[in-house]
C-alpha cells in the first residue's frame, strides 16, 4: 500500500469503531450528567406526602405527576367556600422547580393547609398509578376506607416553645386534633414553680397520630411548637440487639438465645476488678 500525502486515511473498520466509541462516550457523558441531576432532584427527607403514599423511594418511582390527587383535594365538596361558591386552596400542592421536593410530585405544608382527613379520601381513590395505595387506608376487617389508618407523618412537640409547658393554659392543638384524646392527650402535672397550678401538657400518641397537621395549623406560637415530621425523620431506632426482657413479646422475638461472651481479655483484665479490690492495699504499693 502506498502512503498518501496529507491526513492519514481512515479505514471503514476504524471509522465504525471510532463512531461506536464516539456515540458511547458522549452517551455516557450525557447519561452521567443527567443521572447526577436526577439524583439531586429527589425530595428533601422533610417532605410530607399525601395519605397512603408508598414509602418515599417507591413513591418517587411510581408517581406519574398527574396532579389528580391535588385536584381531587381542592375540588372536594367540603372545600367549596359557601359564600363564594369557589374552592379554597387545597391541601396538596404540586412541587415546582424551586421547591425542595421532586418537581411535579404532590406534598403539603400543614402550617398553610393541613389535611382534613376526609372519610372518602378522594386524593387516594383517584390515583391512577398506585403511588397512593388504597390498600394502605382500607380496613382489612371491614374492607372500607378508614381515615384513621392514614400515615403522613408524626406530630412532634417542642417543650421549650410550647407555652403549655411554661404553665400557660393552652390546649389549641389538643382541641384541633381530629382524633382528640387518641392522637393528642393532655398530661396533667404539678407546677412546682407556683406550687398551686397545673401543667396541661400535650402529649402525642405515636401510633394514633396520622400526621394530618391540624395541630400545627392551630398552634398559637409564632413558629409552631407542635409540627409534623415524616415518621422516618421524627423517630429513632434502638436496634434489634436491644431486648426488653420484661416484655414477653419482645423476649419471644429472640427466643431463649444467650448472648456470646464478649468479655475483652488483655493484660489489664487478667486481674478481675474484684480481686484487685479484695487483695492488698488500695493505694497499690
Amino acid at each position: 500500500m502506498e502512503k498518501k500525502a496529507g491526513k492519514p486515511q481512515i479505514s471503514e473498520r476504524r471509522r465504525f469503531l471510532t463512531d461506536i466509541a464516539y456515540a458511547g462516550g458522549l452517551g455516557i457523558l450525557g447519561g452521567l450528567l443527567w443521572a447526577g441531576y436526577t439524583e439531586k432532584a429527589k425530595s428533601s427527607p422533610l417532605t410530607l406526602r399525601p395519605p397512603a403514599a408508598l414509602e418515599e423511594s417507591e413513591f418517587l418511582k411510581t408517581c406519574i405527576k398527574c396532579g389528580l390527587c391535588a385536584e381531587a383535594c381542592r375540588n372536594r365538596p367540603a372545600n367549596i367556600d359557601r359564600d363564594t361558591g369557589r374552592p379554597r386552596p387545597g391541601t396538596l400542592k404540586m412541587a415546582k422547580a424551586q421547591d425542595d421536593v421532586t418537581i411535579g410530585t404532590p406534598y403539603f405544608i400543614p402550617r398553610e393547609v393541613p389535611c382534613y382527613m376526609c372519610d372518602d379520601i378522594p386524593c387516594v381513590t383517584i390515583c391512577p398509578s398506585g403511588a397512593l395505595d388504597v390498600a394502605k387506608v382500607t380496613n382489612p376487617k371491614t374492607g372500607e376506607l378508614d381515615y384513621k389508618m392514614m400515615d403522613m407523618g408524626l406530630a412532634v412537640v417542642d417543650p421549650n416553645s410550647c407555652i403549655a409547658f411554661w404553665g400557660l393554659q393552652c390546649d389549641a392543638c389538643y382541641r384541633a386534633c381530629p382524633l382528640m384524646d387518641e392522637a393528642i392527650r393532655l398530661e396533667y402535672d404539678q407546677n412546682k414553680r407556683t406550687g398551686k397550678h397545673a401543667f396541661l401538657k400535650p402529649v402525642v400518641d405515636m401510633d394514633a397520630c396520622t400526621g394530618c397537621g391540624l395541630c400545627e395549623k392551630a398552634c398559637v406560637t409564632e413558629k409552631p411548637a407542635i409540627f409534623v415530621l415524616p415518621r422516618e425523620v421524627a423517630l429513632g431506632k434502638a436496634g434489634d440487639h436491644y431486648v426488653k426482657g420484661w416484655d414477653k413479646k419482645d423476649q419471644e422475638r429472640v427466643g431463649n438465645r444467650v448472648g456470646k461472651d464478649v468479655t475483652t481479655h488483655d493484660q489489664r483484665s487478667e486481674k478481675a476488678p474484684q480481686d484487685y479490690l479484695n487483695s492488698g492495699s488500695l493505694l497499690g504499693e
Partner: protein
Amino acid sequence: MKWSNIKYLVLRRIVQLSLLALYFMGNWYGWKVLQGDLSASLLFGKVPLSDPFAILQTLATGALLATNALVGALIIMLFYGIIGGRAFCSWVCPVNMVTDLAAWLRRKLLIDRIERKIWISRNLRYYLLVIALIVSALTGLAAFEVISPITILNRGVIFGFGAGAGLLVAIFLFDLFAVKNGWCGHLCPLGGFHSLVGKYNLFRVWHTSENCTLCMKCKTVCPEVEVLKMIGKRSEFVVGKECTNCGRCVDVCDDDALGFDLRNFLSNPKGGNQ
C-alpha cells in the same frame, strides 16, 4: 390572508389551547371533562389516559403500576399508532407553540439566512430516549419527567408556574439563536417516542407531484424538512416517521399539491403509494 392558508394552523392552536383550558378548568373549577395533566388524565371522569413514554420510564425504574395508568397508556398508544401518528407534537404539546414562535421569528428576522456552525443530529432524540430509560432505571426516578419542559409548561398552566418556566425561555432562545427546530426536531425524546409509535398510522400528507410548481414554500415551513424529500419528484405519501402531521405544508401550498389522505396498506404494504 386566505383561510385555506392558515386552516390547519388555526385548528391546531384551537386544539392545543382548548386542551390547556380544559385541564385548567379541571383543577380551577373542578370540571370533569379533562382532569389531571398530560402525564395522566381522566376523560369525562371515567376514561384513564396516560403518557406512554412517562409510563415506560416509570416501568424502567422498577415500579409496579396500577392498571389505570397502564390502560391509559395503551389507549393513547392505539390512538396515535393508528390515527394520529406523531400528531401529539403539533396538535397537543404546548411547547410546540413556543418552538413554532421561535421558528417563525427565525424566518422573519432572517436568522435562518446566517450560517452558523452549530450542528446536532436529528437522531439525537432517539439516543436521549434510550438514555432517559437507562437513567430512570439507575436513579429510580423517571428521568425525562423531572426535566421535561412539556410537563413544566402543562403543569404551569394548571397549577401555577414556578422557576421551571426558565427552561421554557431557554428552549425558546435555543430554537431562535442556536439550532433551527432545535428542541422539537433534534432533542425532545418524547417527540422521538411519538415518532416511533406513530410510524404506521393511517392519516398522512399525500403529495401530488404533477401539481407541484417547486415553489418550496412547504420546505420553508416544515419543522422536519427531511420528510419532504419527495417534493416535486414523486407522487407519494409523506411517510417519514418524524412528520408531525401539523399540516403547515398543506396550508402554505397554493398549487393543491399537498393534502391529507388515508394510507392504504392493503394495496401497498409500505403505504408509500396510493
